[in-house]
């Protein structure tokens, strides 16, 4: 495709050829705009932020409600001390990410096993699925007292919150994926005397990868949210991002509050991108959706 313009005289003028090459180089055929557009939005947001902070607020409100972007940058990001600035925030991030990853790992392990069990027999699916739905629809807040009773106020309780949020997308997507093997494929395996395990390992599990990875994407994001939210309810043990944010709000350390919030946000984005990258790597040869995962 890209060779065409060089070899053939463009019939409709240079503009179209240029548009063509741009289409090949960037997503959605937007050229540099694909990268410039979000940057402009960012500059606009910062501008509005400055405007509100300096024009609409007095000095006191500016300090307690919305400090200017450069104040957030200077007091939150540039300070590196034991109890001030970026250092405690990154330490809290480490705690939160550990909770989120353990929660995600447990969700994957239990979720995949449950999906496999449900895939083996209709009655197994009927017996388990309603309870998976119940876990999904019950507000975490309603479960907080029970989790406190069972798991205490520390890290294990926070992990449980992550699992409660992340396990449902793993179960449903994996199950959907396992069941997506075509009848013809099953016939082929039946004709060649494949047992249950061979069928699972060579046909159903690889076939479930696209759906599983979609589920993983949702679950990973959910697990990060769970780890931060869990911090608010289960405050014993190492300090995570959620609790730090809460503390900063109480102590009116607003620039650091903003920094911690932004870090939590960036962490969520990072996890999302990492899982997306894993999806693309895994599926690049065979699945249609791989192209959309960049």
């Amino acid at each position, binding site marked *: 495709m890209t060779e065409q313009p060089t070899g053939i005289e463009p019939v409709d003028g240079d503009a179209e050829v240029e548009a063509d090459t741009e289409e090949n180089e960037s997503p959605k055929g937007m050229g540099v705009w694909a990268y410039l557009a979000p940057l402009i939005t960012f500059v606009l947001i910062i501008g509005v932020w400055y405007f509100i902070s300096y024009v609409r607020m007095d000095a006191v409100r500016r300090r307690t409600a919305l400090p200017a972007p450069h104040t957030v940058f200077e007091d939150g990001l540039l300070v590196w001390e034991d109890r001030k600035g970026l250092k405690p925030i990154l330490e809290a991030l480490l705690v939160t990410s550990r909770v989120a990853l353990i929660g995600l790992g447990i969700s994957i392990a239990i979720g995949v096993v449950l999906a496999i069990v449900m895939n083996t027999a209709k009655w197994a699916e009927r017996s388990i699925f309603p309870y998976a739905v119940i876990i999904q629809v019950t507000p975490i807040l309603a479960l907080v007292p029970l989790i406190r009773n069972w798991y205490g106020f520390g890290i294990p309780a926070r992990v449980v919150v992550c699992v409660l949020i992340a396990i449902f997308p793993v179960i449903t997507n994996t199950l959907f994926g396992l069941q997506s093997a*075509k009848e*013809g*494929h099953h*016939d*082929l*395996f*039946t*004709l*060649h*005397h*494949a047992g249950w395990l*061979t069928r699972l390992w*060579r*046909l159903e599990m*690889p*076939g479930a*990868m696209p759906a599983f990875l979609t589920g993983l994407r949702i679950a990973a994001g959910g697990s990060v949210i769970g780890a931060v939210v869990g911090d608010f309810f289960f405050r014993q043990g190492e300090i995570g991002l959620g609790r730090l944010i809460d503390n900063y709000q109480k102590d009116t350390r607003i620039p650091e509050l903003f920094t911690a919030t932004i870090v939590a946000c960036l962490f969520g984005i990072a996890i999302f991108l990492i899982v997306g990258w894993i999806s693309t790597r895994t599926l690049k*040869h*065979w*699945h*249609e959706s791989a192209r959309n995962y960049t």
Partner: protein
Amino acid sequence: MSDAAPALRFDKISMTFPDGTEALDGISFGVSMGEFVTIVGPSGCGKSTLLRIASGLLEPTSGRVEADRERIGYVFQDATLLDWRNVQNNVELLPQLHGFPKAERKRLASEAIELVGLTGFERHYPKSLSGGMKMRVSLARTLTLAPPLFLFDEPFAAVDEITRQRLNEETQALFQREGFAGLFITHSISEAVFMSTRVMVMSARPGRILSEYAVPFSYPRQAELRFDARFGELCGEVSVALEGAHASEASDD
């Protein structure tokens, strides 16, 4: 040829599905080694059901099937490739399911890939192959086990006419070289006559064998055979019988 050892034998096969649909009614015939038999018939006459019964995927309501099902060759209407495996690994699937050692698998797959003319495409994934190429991969996969009996369920229905003719010629050449027994199902009369030693015409549901035609042309058959007057004549005869089969369907309604 018909006195050679039978690779497949149907004995008074009848099939009624649980919902009461009568699919087949008293089908009896055999396919000997080195014979290529094609069944043509109206859509929904139970041709595919018969093939599923032959392979053991389906148990008939009554009657008996004799066939060696250990290494059965079944070519589906759809290529049924595994999208996450490249051509090489797709072709290795059946030897893998049968527990062949890795080196043996590789050798069998390479040979089969060469037979269907796909050497050089080993590392391609199904996504990047045309419909005709996918069918060839599917054929190669079946060839790895060197099955004595091949069952074809309208394998070339989804490819364009030219590709279909080329695949017909190649399959016919493979059949001649490998000497397997073939049972082939199709809607296309010229495909049936071109490939087969015998053509059977099946009636509308419940399927019965209405008539049978021996195809006198010797193998290997060249593409030009399709323009031979005797070829056209035989196609015409089968076509008339097939119209009769459709008519019986109409009178049933």
